[in-house]
């Protein structure tokens, strides 16, 4: 084998590119089976109510309707990624305690299955549901008060999770602090707005299994949850993902999987559903809105000596991944800094709002908005360059984090920040440290321009002791020569290009041309458990598994086994949960590090923000496919501009007022930064395959605080709440005396 990798580090075209661009690739909604029926779901009409009765007779009498399913048809009427706290269908008669209560408008109450989609839709309103309203609580602070309506038994004050950090001696820290800054940060909802709304097809496969064709992030976890609700062994359930039209965390939890399986199983016929955009926006979880209070102190020479924070996250009506999202935010709210004294309390709180859950960054964006806001305020208060101040405090290989342990080896925050700052063109390093040039002139008389910086860290892989592993199988076929290599790897290609890099890594591992590599992907009938495509983990985890399986298969090949087939499970170093009192833990086994610089203009008359340039620096360890990394950086930056500046999902009394893309505004081509400059650095992670680190969430996390810092640079005002809608910006400017005149 050559020393120089043949397939790693090359910007190969994506294997799925031609099919997707030409429209040939089927997504779940494109697939039809003979004799299929159509499903429509009746969602809850109330935010909190007991369902006294459901009368389906009129709906069932509607021409073309085959069957209406309600709670009493669900064998084990519960599901949930961590805690099974949500009924599959809300209503009486299922035997699951509390399943007769709807707790948010995303709850599903009944399923109409009909010969046509039109008939199912027409019958939907004919289902008569008798509700008895219960007191609702839609404000996260009110939900924590004594006497607030309780959503779930066993969670007093609706507190789903509470974590602590007690690190060093916080009082001693405050005594040392010469400068103190404070802030109350608020972050809003965000809708995933993936291209493909939820859709799927349930059917009985050729081996009699209940199969669901759907788009998700983890076939084996979907199978587990479907099996649980149907009361069937996992072997009798099969989950298949065709092409997946984006996910971003929004497909981690169940949407149509269980209900399709239920209907197909009960009717022994294929059943299909396609959600409208409105159903998608109402029917799946959102990024957690948070309130974060933070107080940090530093010495005059720029050493952060104390950090205190409280995070309150709105979980909505069910847990979903809230305990893990808030756990992540908990770790990141002190920033990637070596702070000797810290005190943090983090809460995830049930309310009657739609559920919150996983979304690219997984608690990181909220925490980073507060942490980097604090760091930028400190730099301002100290009169110190924000790059310089960060470099004095960043975590390094020998640093101890606020959870009492060091990071895994090869911490590169300092290098990432220095490279990003230098390549931005705004900063240079002189004899007396880092200095920034003034912002370029704004493009009009009513506009102001500023530059801001933020840095961050993000775990790669599951955290806090969660079981973490990835299975891969490599088959080498041929006789004298290798003719064909088959890789079995379930890792979901949610659009990030996983299937392309899996093949690159297999070709590299076996040492064959990539044309010989075939991938057998996400189908529980054909692959081992890969874990989810989330936590920026799939290249790292699947890469290690494929590399391991390739080595074993090659060994068998050399030992003349034909075909040479090897299966390998990669298990990373163990992590541990937070200590209840102190938070002490080894939370993660790998990290990615990032720094972003934003150049922003604001129209002080209208409040419109234009993100001119973003410099996005990342240590990716090893760029397996550099073009795909650039794609992830650009996509994440655009999504984060939406989060920071535009996307304003309005929930009033638990109801979403703008469940359309015509009213919930996401960036279009004219809203995106004029330039996104990726700075891709390759400092190997000794644990990563070929040194690779995960990177897909990282360019999202730091953007909002960088934009807020740039806005401060432009106007002298701190904006501690996102989204920075024109109205919010104008009203804040006026309050501070910056007028149109």
């Amino acid at each position: 084998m050559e020393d120089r990798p043949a397939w790693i580090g090359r910007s190969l075209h994506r294997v799925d590119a031609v099919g997707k661009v030409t429209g040939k690739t089927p997504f779940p909604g494109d697939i039809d089976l003979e004799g299929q029926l159509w499903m429509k779901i009746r969602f809850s009409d109330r935010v909190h109510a007991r369902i006294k009765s459901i009368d389906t007779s009129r709906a069932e009498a509607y021409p073309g309707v085959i069957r209406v399913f309600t709670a009493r048809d669900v064998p084990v009427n519960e599901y949930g990624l961590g805690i099974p706290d949500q009924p599959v269908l809300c209503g009486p008669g299922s035997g699951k305690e509390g399943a007769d209560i709807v707790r948010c408008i995303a709850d599903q109450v009944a399923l109409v299955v009909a010969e046509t989609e039109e008939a199912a839709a027409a019958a939907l309103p004919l289902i008569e549901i008798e509700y008895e309203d219960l007191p609702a609580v839609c404000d996260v602070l009110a939900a924590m008060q004594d006497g607030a309506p309780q959503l779930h038994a066993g969670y007093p004050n609706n507190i789903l999770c509470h974590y602590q950090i007690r690190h060093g001696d916080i009082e001693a820290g405050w005594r040392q602090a010469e400068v103190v800054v404070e802030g109350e940060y608020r972050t809003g909802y965000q809708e995933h707005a993936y291209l493909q709304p939820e859709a799927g097809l349930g059917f009985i496969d050729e081996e009699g299994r209940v199969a669901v064709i759907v788009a998700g992030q983890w076939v084996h976890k979907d199978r587990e949850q479907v099996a649980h609700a149907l009361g069937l062994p996992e072997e009798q359930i099969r989950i298949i993902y065709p092409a997946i039209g984006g996910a971003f965390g929004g497909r981690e939890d169940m949407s149509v999987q269980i209900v399709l399986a239920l209907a197909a199983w009960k009717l022994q016929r294929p059943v299909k559903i396609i959600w409208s955009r409105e159903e998608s926006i109402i029917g799946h979880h959102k990024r957690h809105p948070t309130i974060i209070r933070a107080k940090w102190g530093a010495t005059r020479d720029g050493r952060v000596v104390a950090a205190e924070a409280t995070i309150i996250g709105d979980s909505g009506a069910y847990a979903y991944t809230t305990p893990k999202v808030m756990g992540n935010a908990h770790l990141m709210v002190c920033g990637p800094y070596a702070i000797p004294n810290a005190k943090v309390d983090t809460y995830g709180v049930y309310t009657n709002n739609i559920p919150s859950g996983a979304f690219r960054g997984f608690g990181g964006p909220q925490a980073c908005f507060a942490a980097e806001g604090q760091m930028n305020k400190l730099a301002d208060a100290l009169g110190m360059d924000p790059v310089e101040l960060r470099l004095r405090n960043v975590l390094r290989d020998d640093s101890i984090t606020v959870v009492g342990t060091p990071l895994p080896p090869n911490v590169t925050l300092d290098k990432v920040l220095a490279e990003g700052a230098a390549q931005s063109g705004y900063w240079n390093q002189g004899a007396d440290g880092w200095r920034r040039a003034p912002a370029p002139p704004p493009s009009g008389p009513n506009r102001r321009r500023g530059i801001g910086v933020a840095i961050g860290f993000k775990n790669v892989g599951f955290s806090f002791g969660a079981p973490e592993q990835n299975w891969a199988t490599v088959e080498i076929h041929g006789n004298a020569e290798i003719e064909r290599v088959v890789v079995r790897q379930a890792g979901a290609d949610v659009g990030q290009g996983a299937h392309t890099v899996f093949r690159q890594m297999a070709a590299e591992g076996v040492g064959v041309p990539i044309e010989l590599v075939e991938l057998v992907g996400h189908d529980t009938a054909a692959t081992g458990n890969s874990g989810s495509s989330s936590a920026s983990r799939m290249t790292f985890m699947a890469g290690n598994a494929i590399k391991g399986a390739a080595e074993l298969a090659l060994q068998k090949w050399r030992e003349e086994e034909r075909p040479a087939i090897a299966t390998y499970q990669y298990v990373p170093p163990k992590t541990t949960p937070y200590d209840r009192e102190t938070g002490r833990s080894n939370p993660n086994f790998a990290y990615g590090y990032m720094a972003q610089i934003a150049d922003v203009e604001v129209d002080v008359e209208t409040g419109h923000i234009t993100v001119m340039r973003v410099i996005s620096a990342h240590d990716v360890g090893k760029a397996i496919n550099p073009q795909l990394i650039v794609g992830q950086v650009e996509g994440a930056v655009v999504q984060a501009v939406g989060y920071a500046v535009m996307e304003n999902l309005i929930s009033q009394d638990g109801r979403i007022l703008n469940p359309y893309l015509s009213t919930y505004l996401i960036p279009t081509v004219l809203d995106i930064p004029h330039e996104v400059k990726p700075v891709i650095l390759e400092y190997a992670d000794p644990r990563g395959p070929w040194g690779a680190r995960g990177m897909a969430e990282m360019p999202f996390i730091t953007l909002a605080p960088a934009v807020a810092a740039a806005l401060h640079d432009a106007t002298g005002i701190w904006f501690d709440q996102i989204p920075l809608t024109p109205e919010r910006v104008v009203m804040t400017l006026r309050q501070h005396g910056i007028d149109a005149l």
Partner: protein
Amino acid sequence: MTLWTHYHTPSSLAEAHALLQSYAGRARVIAGGTDLLLDIRHGHLTPPEALIDITKIPEMCSLIQEGDDLVIGAGVTHTRIVTDALIAARATCLVESCGVVGGPQVRNVGTLGGNVAHALPAGDGTTSLVALDAWADVIVRDERRWLPIRELFLGPGQSLLDPTRDLLVRFRIPLAQEREGSAFKRIMRPQGVALPILGCAAWVRLDSSGERCEDIRLCIGPVDRVPVRAEQVEAAVRGQPIDPATVDAAVAAGRTSLSPRTSKYRATASYRQEMIDVLLRRVLPLAAERARTGQAVPEGVGME
């Protein structure tokens, strides 16, 4: 979802009218459909039995200069208006307003007539047509006649036209003469798939000295249930030199006479009030400058 059962593309007004009559209320006129089909899809409108597409009727797709007037067919797309040099030079605000409607695909399909017939209080094209004092050629209750454009509007989404039987045929606008100019600006993000927060069109005629405003028409929306002229603001400007003091007076008149409402997810009333100030300060001097110089280059149109 079935959005319609029959789709007709009549080639004459008479044929379109006859089709509407034959369906007796079960058909609707479609002129691009970028609003209509969304309304049906979202369930705001029951799917009609038939759609009568008027964009193949020559009379409704023509752009004809008649002396100092321009006659624009109701089926003319936004893109055609935006790319028309005569309109750009002599009805500039119409190009500027049609140029910010939706994205390129919507402008390629959506029509000026569709925009007006939708009767929103802040339709972009509508706002400029009101400032230009357009007239509309309509067939209402089987009778064909010309109406001042403002008489078409009855309420939000409600016009004099019954979309199941009436037809909006053409518009007539006066082209800018010497010492006349117009401008349109709106407040929203650069590319709209959404409704604007606020739009403002102004038409100005200067006196023979080129100093003072001899006449002005100003339309700001949404500030009422229908598109309206900002008459008190006009009064503050008429007869005055368009200088900073007059613009201040216009802003003051806007503050006292216009009361925009809060819409749930678009903007609050107080933000809109602020933005009326901003729009007046941007639009009035621009329209006056165009009137003074006789030169007009549309701003902010389409992809920058």
